[in-house]
């Protein structure tokens, strides 16, 4: 048996032998006709096939150890049969005749399975055009004399040269077929004997099952797309054969030669032969767009004037392709329906003039990866994320050396608090700022140039901090206006979805500046430099009580990126510090500075101040998040401490005693409530604002809280840790309402926990009787406990719940240690956000529906990716890639509009048609040119080719050509043009031909059956794909 295998290698073997020898016990003897493989009349094909095979180095992949083991082969065949059965591909069921264009407009689906021959894996795939099930209207009964659907489809002319289809569909016009191919991409079935073996298997499986769907086997290397196959019907069979060559034999380059081979293949015994129908498509490629100059140049960086970089301002993103994103235009000229003899096309003469072709269609080829500015910009920025260097390493020195010392020693920084504030600088000059920072850099780096030059840095800082240029002293007015008319729009709120920052915020602007610096001004070094300047500016503002502009006031917005939150946090700190400092200054005017400007409480001269000792006690038992013992909400200096009755009241704390205290820290009177014990109005106290939090702090806090566990003690501790605010409120309440009870407090603070009932007293009157809810009455519950501890202290003299000094230093330290990579990660959402807005803006100018759709998807996708704490690089890259894609599509649209001169078009109607044509080119694989060579678009295309040809010719021969005007005139005059038409178009890059006929085979008395041959000739290769049917019943 091994010997037999060797035999196969030596040459052409018939399938008959193969079957007979390799299959000792065939499950069903194959019909005799199945034994024919390369009958004599197929000799030319066989020879060609052999030629092709020989040109391949014999690298055997499909190796079966015991090749002839019957069981392996049998198993393989029965597996094929099984799959065919599973997929219900048995029998003939006729669908509707194929409608025009249905191969493109319809849906193609595929089903796959894997089978193996010994241990060599094959995939079996069923490709099919989805058809309404009603089409296959119950033709279950076997129609004996109807030929299989696929055989009929061979002749159908409605879907020749489909724009997009599986190659077998293009070659054979099939609506349905099954392919068996090596499962792994690099695997191949190379030797002829093995090809034969596979084909035999297919033949037997088809015969055994009665499947009428064509079954193909892919042979040779996958890239060659070589398929052989078979289709069987009742007493009929079609063989699908193929030739693929690198060089085309001369006689096959034209119609007459191909007709000859077709006829000889059919070997029709009839004379005269029934007519052969012919479809021809010639494809011309236009690569030269020289007459059209791609205008987009990378912005000129050196032309930096007043914040503009070659037309680019800081805060704007560049857009567009740097090279023509449309590389080729393919014009397919088609003669869909010719009959033999109507047209002459041989090696000396051709009637096939593209101008005369009845059908024109066009497709464009886009440049593979056109360099796109926006995409590059974002990609380069993203690359920073992977850099490991710290700011110091990049700038080659310890940037934050001086500051670093201060930061490291927070206590030192804290002590600054007690020092008088620095004299406020009313006018903040950017050049001043730059100057100081530069000096610092120079000091460390000697003569070396700093990465960013002064002008650039000045411009950026002015852009980021516009308040620095204004003459007015700085105040809070520079914060982002919350009533921004934009702020309601969907576009504005995109930051919410991207977790970036509002598009008018400092953070967003910073991201754009860094992006631009990275691209045009010194790359990573420039980024490090700007960041360092930024951090210096932040410290400057903190120390000098200047609010940071471009940030919404209030606590950090958790919907924004962490960096934005940090800056907001710093602003909160500055705001409080400023209020406190101003409060200190205006102390004599008795105005309470208020908590975020909220309260307007009178500060009497007889203020109470608890002793530090007392404070310490309280601090110990009710310590909370703030562990800075010495900081009070309002920093009155010790000298202001006045002797009063505070101490005693604090210690005794009973309502009777405290009732005599002077009320303090009242915000306003409560609408209806009065104190229970004396009926005096109940006052709502001024309270401390809870501490603003950034998301990382919250994370930390909730981690600590979660760590306390779920035990009762844990829960108790947790409540206690969070009770600072409650205690502070109770103290404020007590101070504002001397002599009050817990009931009073609860009625204000948690009204549902004070239950009132109507009862009838002894006198028979309805009275309201109220009491604390059951849960408030539980002895030693935390509320009661806190109430007992609370002393009457107004908010302004309480320990601060929020230690702004400490928090500010923490933020500043955090900023200082951010590496450029960290920074890039923080700001990437802003950059993506900006890029999406940019793409949207550009799309608005072009109005491309495809792009609209994609942008929507990018937004949805991004918002999902960016909401995860650490989005994967792969996903981020994907988003950036999609943005680049959209940019390329828009650039392509612009390129096409320019090429087809849509703007220049004067007639409104023509212009509209042309615009439609251009947008179709973007969205559809192939677009029909209305009116072919005589239509408006057709004329433009023709002109494009003529111009390109003229250029090649004029460069080829230096001979002077006719001036363009004249030539174009010539175009419109058919007679003249006919003579010169050769030069209008280059030689076709592709010649496709479909030959079809119906003839009896193999004998004159056989049934007349469909025959078809497709051929394609390009510069690089030549392929013949034949489908030859024969009658097998009487042969």
């Amino acid at each position: 048996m091994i010997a037999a295998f060797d035999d196969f290698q030596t040459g052409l073997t018939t399938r008959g032998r193969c079957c007979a020898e390799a299959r000792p016990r065939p499950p069903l003897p194959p019909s005799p006709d199945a034994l024919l493989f390369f009958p004599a009349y197929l000799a030319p094909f066989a020879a060609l096939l052999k030629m092709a095979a020989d040109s391949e180095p014999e690298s055997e992949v499909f190796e079966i150890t015991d090749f002839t083991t019957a069981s392996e082969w049998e198993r393989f065949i029965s597996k094929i049969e099984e799959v065919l059965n599973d997929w219900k591909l048995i029998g003939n069921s006729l669908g509707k005749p194929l409608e025009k264009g249905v191969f493109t407009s319809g849906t193609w689906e595929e089903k796959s399975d894997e089978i193996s021959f010994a241990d060599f894996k094959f995939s079996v795939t069923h490709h099919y055009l989805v058809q309404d099930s009603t089409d296959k209207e119950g033709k279950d009964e076997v129609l004996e004399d109807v030929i299989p659907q696929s055989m009929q489809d061979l002749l159908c002319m409605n879907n020749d040269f489909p724009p997009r289809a599986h190659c077998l569909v293009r070659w054979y016009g099939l609506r349905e077929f099954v392919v068996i191919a090596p499962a792994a991409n690099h695997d191949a079935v190379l030797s002829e004997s093995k090809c034969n073996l596979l084909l035999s298997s297919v033949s037997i499986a088809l015969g055994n099952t009665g499947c009428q769907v064509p079954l193909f086997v892919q042979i040779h290397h996958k890239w060659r797309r070589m398929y052989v196959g078979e289709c069987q019907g009742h007493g009929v069979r079609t063989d699908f054969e193929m030739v693929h060559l690198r060089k085309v034999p001369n006689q096959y380059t034209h119609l007459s030669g191909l007709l000859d081979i077709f006829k000889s293949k059919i070997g029709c015994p009839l004379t005269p032969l029934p007519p052969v129908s012919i479809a021809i498509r010639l494809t011309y490629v236009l690569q030269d767009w020289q007459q059209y100059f791609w205008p987009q140049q990378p912005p000129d960086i050196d032309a930096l004037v007043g914040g503009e970089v070659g037309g680019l301002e800081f805060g704007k993103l560049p857009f567009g392709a740097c090279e023509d994103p449309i590389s080729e235009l393919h014009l397919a000229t088609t003669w869909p329906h010719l009959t033999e003899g109507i047209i002459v096309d041989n090696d000396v003469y051709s009637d096939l003039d593209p101008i005369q072709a009845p059908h024109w269609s066009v497709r464009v080829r886009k440049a593979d990866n056109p360099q796109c500015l926006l995409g590059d910009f974002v990609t380069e920025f993203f690359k920073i994320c992977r850099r490991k260097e710290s700011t110091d390493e990049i700038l080659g020195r310890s940037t934050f050396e001086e500051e670093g010392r201060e930061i490291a020693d927070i206590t030192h920084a804290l002590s600054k608090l007690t020092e008088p504030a620095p004299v406020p600088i009313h006018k903040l000059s950017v050049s001043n700022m730059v100057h100081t920072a530069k000096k610092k850099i120079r000091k460390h780096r000697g003569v070396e140039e700093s990465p960013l030059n002064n002008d650039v840095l000045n411009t950026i800082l002015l852009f980021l901090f516009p308040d620095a240029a204004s003459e007015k002293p700085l105040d809070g007015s520079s914060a982002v206006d919350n009533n921004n008319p934009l702020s309601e729009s969907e576009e504005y709120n995109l930051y919410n979805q991207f977790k970036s920052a509002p598009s008018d915020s400092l953070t967003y602007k910073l991201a754009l500046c860094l992006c631009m610096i990275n691209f045009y001004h010194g790359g990573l070094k420039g980024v490090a430099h700007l960041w360092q300047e930024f951090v210096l500016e932040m410290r400057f503002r903190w120390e000098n009580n200047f609010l940071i502009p471009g940030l919404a006031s209030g606590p950090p917005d958790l919907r924004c990126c962490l960096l934005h939150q940090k800056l907001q946090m710093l602003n909160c700190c500055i705001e409080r510090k400023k209020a406190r400092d101003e409060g200190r200054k205006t102390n004599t005017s008795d105005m309470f500075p208020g908590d975020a400007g909220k309260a307007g409480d009178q500060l009497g001269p007889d203020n109470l101040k608890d002793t530090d000792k007392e404070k310490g006690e309280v601090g110990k038992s009710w310590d909370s998040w703030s562990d800075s013992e010495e900081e009070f909400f309002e920093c009155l200096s010790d000298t202001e401490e006045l002797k009063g009755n505070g101490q005693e009241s604090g210690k005794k704390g009973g309502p009777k005693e405290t009732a005599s205290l002077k009320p303090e820290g009242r915000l306003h009177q409560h609408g209806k409530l009065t104190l229970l014990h004396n009926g005096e109005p109940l006052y709502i106290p001024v309270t401390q604002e809870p501490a603003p939090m950034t998301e990382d702090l919250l994370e930390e806090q909730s981690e600590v809280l979660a760590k306390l566990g779920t035990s009762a003690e844990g829960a108790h501790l947790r409540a206690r840790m969070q009770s600072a605010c409650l205690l502070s409120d109770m103290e404020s309440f007590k101070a504002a309402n001397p002599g009050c009870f817990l009931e009073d407090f609860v009625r204000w603070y948690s009204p549902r926990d004070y239950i009132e009932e109507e009862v009838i007293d002894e006198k028979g009157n309805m009275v309201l009787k109220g009491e604390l809810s059951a849960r408030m009455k539980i002895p030693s519950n935390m509320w009661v406990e806190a109430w007992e501890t609370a002393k009457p202290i107004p908010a302004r003299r309480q320990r601060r719940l929020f230690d702004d000094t400490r928090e500010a230093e923490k933020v500043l330290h955090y900023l200082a240690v951010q590496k450029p990579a960290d920074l890039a990660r923080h700001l990437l959402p802003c950059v993506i956000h900006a890029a999406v807005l940019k793409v949207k803006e550009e799309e608005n100018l072009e109005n491309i529906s495809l792009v609209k759709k994609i942008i929507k998807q990018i937004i949805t996708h991004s918002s999902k990716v960016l909401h995860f704490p650490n989005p994967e690089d792969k996903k981020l890259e994907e988003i950036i890639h999609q943005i680049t894609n959209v940019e390329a599509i828009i650039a392509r649209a612009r390129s096409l509009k320019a090429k087809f001169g849509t703007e220049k078009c004067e007639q409104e109607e023509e212009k509209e048609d042309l615009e439609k044509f251009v947008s179709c080119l973007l969205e559809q694989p192939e677009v029909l040119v209305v009116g072919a060579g005589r239509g408006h678009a057709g004329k433009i295309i023709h002109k494009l080719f003529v111009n390109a040809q003229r250029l090649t010719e004029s460069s080829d021969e230096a001979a002077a050509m006719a001036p363009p005007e004249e030539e174009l005139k010539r175009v419109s005059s058919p007679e003249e043009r006919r003579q010169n038409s050769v030069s209008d178009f280059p030689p076709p890059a592709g010649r496709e031909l479909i030959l079809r006929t119906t003839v009896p085979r193999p004998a004159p008395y056989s049934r007349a059956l469909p025959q078809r041959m497709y051929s394609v000739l390009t510069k690089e290769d030549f392929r013949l794909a034949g489908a030859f049917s024969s009658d097998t019943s009487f042969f």
Partner: protein
Amino acid sequence: MDEDVLTTLKILIIGESGVGKSSLLLRFTDDTFDPELAATIGVDFKVKTISVDGNKAKLAIWDTAGQERFRTLTPSYYRGAQGVILVYDVTRRDTFVKLDNWLNELETYCTRNDIVNMLVGNKIDKENREVDRNEGLKFARKHSMLFIEASAKTCDGVQCAFEELVEKIIQTPGLWESENQNKGVKLIHREEGPGGGACGGPEESKMAVPTESWCLGDSSWMPQLSMIVECYKYFVGPGLS
């Protein structure tokens, strides 16, 4: 034990003070009812592992104080939650009326938009009901929430509420991340009929859930930009392409 936990989910319980949030949670985690439960200060925290349709999920449940004054603190806990249980008291209409405020708050502070919301009407054991079951249902449907009525005291619907919520979260791709990469989620198609299986809840309780199914690992969301390249691929031989 922890190894077969598919994921850890963050669940949040919100609603007006005194509606029984802490009681519901205690019933779910410890299966007890403690009338001596103090009003929550800030946030409280409990953990429980449950198994839904063969998927084990560890729940980290944050119980927030309904107290007005604590509310400035609690929104920060909305961050990163995958599920929210919004509770009202069926015997206090005012707690139902305030639901809109809570939803607003959710919308403002939630960091994600595919979060699963559940509305729970609590204290159905009490007699002086003020909010009809249908009102709750209507509200839930209007806002795409799951809905159930429950009683922390009698245990009615409590277990079910949590299970349903977790099941919904697990069925929402992209909302949670698997802790064990190679372990897929078992999505068992429940066929117990409109009642939604064990819960026997109304059909409506399951219907109004955001169903946008979108998987992060899936890049099929892009239309075929390669369209034009693709047709070249099919265009005869590698020569032209």
